[in-house]
């Protein structure tokens, strides 16, 4: 079963934050160590990796960036204990956890494609948590171009104050 949730607030929130906080309008990556291979143009950050961006905060243990000679990174992979936080325009927090997150960027026939695919492992699928509840999905795919989240074989847990029902146990 597949569902789509439109998260236009993400885009609005991100734009709003970037405009109102120009002092932090840049991306900072910190880690214990780093390795760059010039031939492959691949940068790997290892151990206690933290990414602070006006739009996103990300924690993981390994972050790999493929850097083309010009332009936008084409592939970014976060691995091990991946945690990503988004904050929308109403200061609503989206908290995503997974084993791995793969960001891919491409331009085909003038159309930009940006996908983030979150994956987990058996018994612990990726999860997105908000104040309203939590959704588990394997995989969890965020189509950033359309600002749409795609869920597969998902389980939803709604907070009682919102749903008035008992929580659904995760798979």
């Amino acid at each position, binding site marked *: 079963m597949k569902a789509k949730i439109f998260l236009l607030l993400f885009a609005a929130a991100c734009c709003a934050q970037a405009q109102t906080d120009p002092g932090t309008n*840049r*991306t900072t*990556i910190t880690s214990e160590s*780093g390795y760059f291979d010039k031939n492959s143009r691949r940068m790997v950050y290892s151990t206690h990796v933290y990414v602070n961006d006006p739009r996103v905060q990300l924690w993981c243990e390994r972050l790999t*960036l493929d850097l083309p000679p010009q332009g936008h990174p084409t592939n970014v992979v976060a691995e091990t204990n991946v945690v990503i936080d988004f904050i929308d325009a109403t200061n609503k927090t989206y908290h995503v956890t997974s084993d791995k997150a793969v960001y891919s960027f491409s331009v085909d026939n003038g159309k930009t494609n940006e996908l983030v695919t979150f994956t987990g492992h058996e018994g612990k699928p990726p999860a997105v948590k908000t104040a309203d509840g939590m959704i588990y999905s394997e995989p969890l795919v965020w189509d950033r171009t359309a600002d749409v989240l795609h869920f597969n074989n998902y389980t939803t847990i709604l907070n009682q104050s919102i749903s008035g029902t008992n929580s659904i146990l995760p798979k």
Partner: protein
Amino acid sequence: MAWGLVFLCSLALGVCSFQGRAQQPPLSHAQDFSTDMYFKPPNEQLVETRLSGTNALPLPGGLLDVKKLKIESFSTNGTLVMTALADQCTYDIRHGIASSPGHLDLVSGDGAYHLDGDGFMFVWGTNATSLTVSNHVRTVIRNGMLKL
């Protein structure tokens, strides 16, 4: 990688220059020196990397103790790709390795990326060129270069 290497030293005792990869390091203290490494054919006339420093002191084993290290990397059209600065490094000429436990600052030619950290090793190998930074790595990317 078929490196061409030109090592130009303004020495206290004179000037020396030499070519080739397996060469002897200078035997005396050098000041304001630079070493150029070239692209593979057919761009072997173009400088790919320039390593320079204010002082170079020969050490046992064909090593140089380099002060105020500056490494510049260029593309084949001559554009500056990146500049790396460090107060000190040990440069192994024969193996093409510059390393130090000290601090490294690196900025891309367009200023979009800035990386710094403690403890580093540049390797200019036959088949690969790489940089390892061991500790406290921090990268700042100018807005818009890495959209998250």
